[in-house]
């Protein structure tokens, strides 16, 4: 283990709990909206830190495979977007499944847990 404990996600969870359990109940109600926004931001950052790095890597590998080892020098997402736009991948089940996995991965990261 290179980093010392507690790690970033744990620190954020702790800070979020202090804000929501201790500060929010006594906060001037006119600042509730701002506090909820801040709690949401912390929660999203936690989700991102806890995201499965292996899954991210797997998605990148799959994209490389779909693009048959694209070596055009362009960003992989850019190449995929361009091929979709020009109609080279219309109604492709393989592409749809990949996009579905991609969006589900991102969706998990953006669903706050405990605000």
């Amino acid at each position, binding site marked *: 283990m290179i980093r010392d404990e507690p790690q970033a996600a744990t620190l954020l969870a702790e800070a979020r709990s202090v804000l929501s359990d201790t500060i929010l109940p006594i906060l001037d109600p006119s600042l509730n909206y*701002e506090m909820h*926004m*801040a709690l*949401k*931001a912390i929660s*999203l950052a936690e989700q991102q830190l806890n995201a499965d790095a292996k899954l991210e890597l797997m998605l990148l590998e799959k994209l490389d495979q779909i693009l048959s080892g694209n070596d055009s020098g362009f*960003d992989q*997402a*850019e190449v*995929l*977007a*361009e091929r*979709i*736009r020009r*109609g080279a991948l*219309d*109604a*492709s*089940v393989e*592409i*749809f499944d990949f*996009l*579905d996995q*991609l*969006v*589900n991965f*991102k*969706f998990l*990261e*953006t669903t706050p847990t405990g605000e």
Partner: protein
Amino acid sequence: MSRIDDNRFSLQNWLAVATGADRVEIINAKPLTGGAIQENWRLECDITGGPNAGSHGYVLRSDAESIVASSLTREQEFRVLKAVHKNGVTVPEPLWLCKDTKIIGSAFYIMQLVTGIGLGPKIVKDLSLGGDRQALGEALGKELATIHAIRPPQAELEFLPLPTGNPAEEVIKQLRKQLDELGEARPILEWGLRWAELNLPTNPKITLVHNDFRTGNYLLNQNGLTGILDWEFAEWGDPMSDIGWFCAKCWRFSRPDLEAGGITDRETFYKGYEAASGQTINKEAVSFWEVMAHIRWAVIALQQTHRYMSGAQKSLELALIGRILPSLEQQVLKMTKPDNWRAA
């Protein structure tokens, strides 16, 4: 000090001329929330002399100091508001237009003050607002039909360009252009746009469309609808696009089960629309425009994220907006599965 405070004297003088009064005093000027592109001010005025003598509440609407492109000018918006008000749409009555930018620093217009709650998440949750929800759903359908009853040509709306082809094709082109300008590849949005290109609605009618008709852009009091707001994106287009935008899942807030704007079921809203318009809703076209609604909202969210990332505007709200993209993209994919594509 706001620019209304800074220019109170010249605004009072202008109001006196506009209202035909001897004198106008602004007793209170308060900014209203909900305008990122436009500024709205609630003005409480005491008018002495002339046909409008007495105490009045007005709303002043002007460009915000940082103008975001792609919306009507205040003069054009005023003229749209006049046209829809004349046709019986429930809107705040537009009263006077000021094109002189020297009065408060930009063009503005004055409309009658209409009170009510407009915040979308609150409206769908708080059932004490809007009266009976079935009746409200039907009323909203009727309002939209009244907007769509305005067909081109209209002399007072000559500044609105007529679509040269299928409006959906034009929207696809604009969204692709906006994505290119952002310089960020979004394969899922491209997937949705390509699907749209192959699934265009056929033979759309052309009517006036509000183009942002959704929960959050109208006001409710305890009894019902008090005013439809935010006409800055109005244009000639396919009327089914307004129905798709209103029913899109992203505008139902915490009530995704109530498919008509989080207010009521789709059938009730359609019933109000069809009864008032005498037209049958093209459900396939509505479904197409719901896909487009999610793509359009995603592109707007991306533009706002870029605005934050560029440092042009610092705001936590703006920083968080990009996080809604996965839910919008998920919805695009749900509606454009491979077995739902027409052959190229």
